[in-house]
């Protein structure tokens, strides 16, 4: 099964080269999608290996797939599949050189993410996460407008400085392992209980590493790059960043936490992550109430969900299965929502919530999936986000973090109200009179006018809008993502078993 460790790295690399080499072939637009499929297939293969009690390793122990790594690789592949499939370019859009670079960068991004979750060395994991900053920088600035340039600059500066802090932390952890016979950065060796690691260095190193990766996972107060980058990037990229990048940065925190827990106990990082998590929830709540831009709304919702996940990590092993399930559910739903938001933006020509009205009456083809996915996002059952949130809150209560959980619950209610109001504002309402529609469509530059057809009925001034049932892109990935999130929480085998094994890895028992 060792080859499945190499395919998610080599496959996307080859596809990236191919998308640069293919010129303006129409097949080129499928290459990002192909990379996701390769990563997902490798993830599923590794999961089956792990369920058969194997731990595949390769590259002299540099690559290793325990249950957690295999699960994370599957998450990366699944979210990647939804984002790239849902955001598939039309044949007309995929001409030109920039489209080739776009597909190549998507593939490289997926390869870097795969390396980050498969690397056994925390140093290599760091390098892979930093490489994602490099690949996504140009993707964020892809539109080359003033604001996307601003978002890209902030993202690269804040992202790389944050990750540089994490490197300082990793260097200190390495220094702590100098006392042992063989200094190492291998996560497997560092998480053995009997290693004489220096507590002061591990404390400082762990704190800095978690701080750095928290920047990358969008936790407050280092979150300011996230809404800008997510709102300016093309839709599939926003989906990938929100669903994959943030989750993998949190995965890095999980790995670091295991090392520090063994040496200094859980209290120190628990305090740090609780503060970060609550602060993220508070910031998301305060900025969601009066949000005017629906892509920024989704970005702040990512900060909210990452905050809650960080609380779950702070709570510890009891909440971890919920956190891991959360990563999958949130990634799939957020990728879906970003994909639909990209279509709405393309058709309506405006990112402003107040200008998108009566979507259900005018475009049910987009409004219905948008509504269902938003319901999943704010935590309605049977979608898995609901079960993850309940799981984290129950675990926190049982662990004696009642106050923290109560504050989180209150903030979640505020966010729920805010998101519901914004979504209703977009979806409900009666369609505008024809004069307004005409003036509104007149201001939209790119050929979106033909999709709104107004018919004058014979006699009076009464007008009808033809309902637009088109989904403006592939609907299958959206249905797939919603179906998976709706059912995944009920599957005890193999999902439940896999999550338990992954948590056992973090407990140091595997």
């Amino acid at each position, binding site marked *: 099964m060792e080859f499945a460790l190499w395919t998610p790295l080599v496959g996307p690399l080859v596809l990236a080269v191919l998308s640069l080499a293919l010129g303006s072939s129409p097949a080129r637009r499928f290459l990002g999608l192909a990379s996701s499929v390769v990563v997902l297939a490798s993830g599923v293969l590794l999961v089956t290996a792990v369920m058969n009690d194997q731990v595949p390793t390769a590259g002299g122990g540099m690559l290793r797939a325990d249950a957690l790594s295999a699960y994370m690789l599957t998450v990366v592949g699944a979210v990647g599949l939804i984002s790239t499939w849902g955001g598939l370019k039309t044949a007309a859009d995929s001409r030109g050189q920039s489209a080739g670079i776009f597909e190549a960068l998507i593939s490289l991004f997926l390869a870097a993410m795969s390396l980050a979750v498969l690397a056994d060395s925390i*140093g290599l994991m760091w*390098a892979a996460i930093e490489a994602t900053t490099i690949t996504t920088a*140009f993707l964020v600035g892809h539109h080359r407008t003033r604001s996307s340039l*601003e978002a890209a600059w*902030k993202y690269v*500066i804040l992202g790389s400085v944050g990750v540089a802090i994490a490197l300082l932390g990793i260097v200190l952890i*390495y220094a702590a392992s100098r006392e042992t016979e063989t200094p190492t950065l291998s996560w497997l060796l560092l998480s053995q209980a009997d290693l004489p690691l220096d507590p002061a260095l591990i404390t400082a190193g762990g704190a800095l590493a978690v701080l750095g990766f928290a920047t990358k996972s969008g936790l407050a107060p280092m979150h300011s790059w996230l809404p800008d980058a997510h709102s300016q990037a093309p839709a599939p990229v926003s989906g990938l960043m929100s669903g994959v990048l943030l989750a993998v940065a949190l995965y890095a925190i999980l790995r670091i936490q295991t090392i520090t827990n063994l040496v200094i106990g859980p209290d120190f990082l628990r305090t740090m992550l609780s503060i970060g998590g609550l602060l993220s929830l508070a910031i998301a709540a305060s900025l969601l109430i009066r949000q005017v831009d629906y892509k920024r709304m989704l970005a702040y919702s990512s900060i909210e969900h990452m905050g809650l996940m960080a609380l779950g990590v702070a709570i510890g092993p009891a909440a971890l299965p919920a956190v891991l399930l959360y990563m999958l559910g949130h990634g799939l739903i957020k990728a879906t929502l970003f994909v639909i938001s990209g279509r709405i933006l393309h058709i309506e020509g405006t990112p402003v919530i107040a200008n998108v009205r009566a979507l259900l009456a005018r475009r049910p083809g987009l409004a219905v999936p948008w509504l269902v996915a938003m319901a999943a996002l704010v935590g309605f059952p049977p979608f898995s986000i609901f079960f993850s949130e309940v799981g984290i809150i129950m675990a926190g209560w049982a662990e004696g973090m009642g106050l923290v959980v109560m504050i989180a619950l209150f903030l979640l209610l505020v966010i729920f109200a805010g998101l519901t109001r914004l979504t209703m504002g977009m979806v409900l309402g009666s369609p505008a009179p024809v004069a307004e529609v005409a003036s509104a469509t007149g201001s939209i530059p790119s050929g979106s006018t033909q999709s709104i057809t107004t018919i004058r009925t014979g006699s009076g001034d009464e007008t009808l809008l033809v309902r637009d049932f088109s989904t403006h892109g592939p609907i299958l990935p959206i249905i797939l993502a919603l179906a998976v999130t709706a059912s995944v929480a009920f599957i005890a085998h193999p999902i439940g078993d896999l999550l338990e094994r992954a948590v056992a890895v973090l407990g140091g028992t595997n």
Partner: protein
Amino acid sequence: MFDSVYAQLVGLCTGALLLTSALMVWRHTLLASIRLLSAQGLSLAALVAVIGVQENEVELLFVALLIIATKGVGLPWVLAHETEAGARAIKEAPRLNPTASLLIVTILTILSYIVMSQLIGLGTSVTSHAAPIGLAMVLIGFLLLISRRRARSQLIGFLLLDNGIATVAFLTSGGVPILLEFAVSLDVLLVVVILYVFAGRMRNKFGGTDVDQLRELHD
């Protein structure tokens, strides 16, 4: 024989590192900062070579060569490329005046000595005695990032930060594994190239590289 000069050589190299960092805060022209950055890269390489000779590790000598190639020559060349004439003219209008910023540098250096002595205890070994310099460089890099307005001066702050991390790595643990060293160097090089490209685009779009102009996106 070498043991007797070893402590002095380490002191000399780390002294040069701290001095170049402080001078970067003090000087305001871009070209001067780039030259200081180059000098700092060479000092770092010398430090690594000295540690390598002392510990009899050939690997560290290769790392020293790598550092000369990237931090000493490569990065400064990328930064100074095509703007040799322009860089002379580019003057930074920082948020802090030189006296105040030099005072802050002093405070940061003292602070890093206090923190590091708490962390690893300023033991008898030569390198751990010098380790606070690395942390001071990281903090000074932060200062540059916060207090500078021009896009490319911020970049220099980022590189100073990175040099500081490398210094901490070499002084506390004799460097990270060589594969990681390669990956880190490559990552930093690419980040710098990307930021450089963005700075160029910014100049085209905004007519300048003042990051204070980046005020369109907010809530």
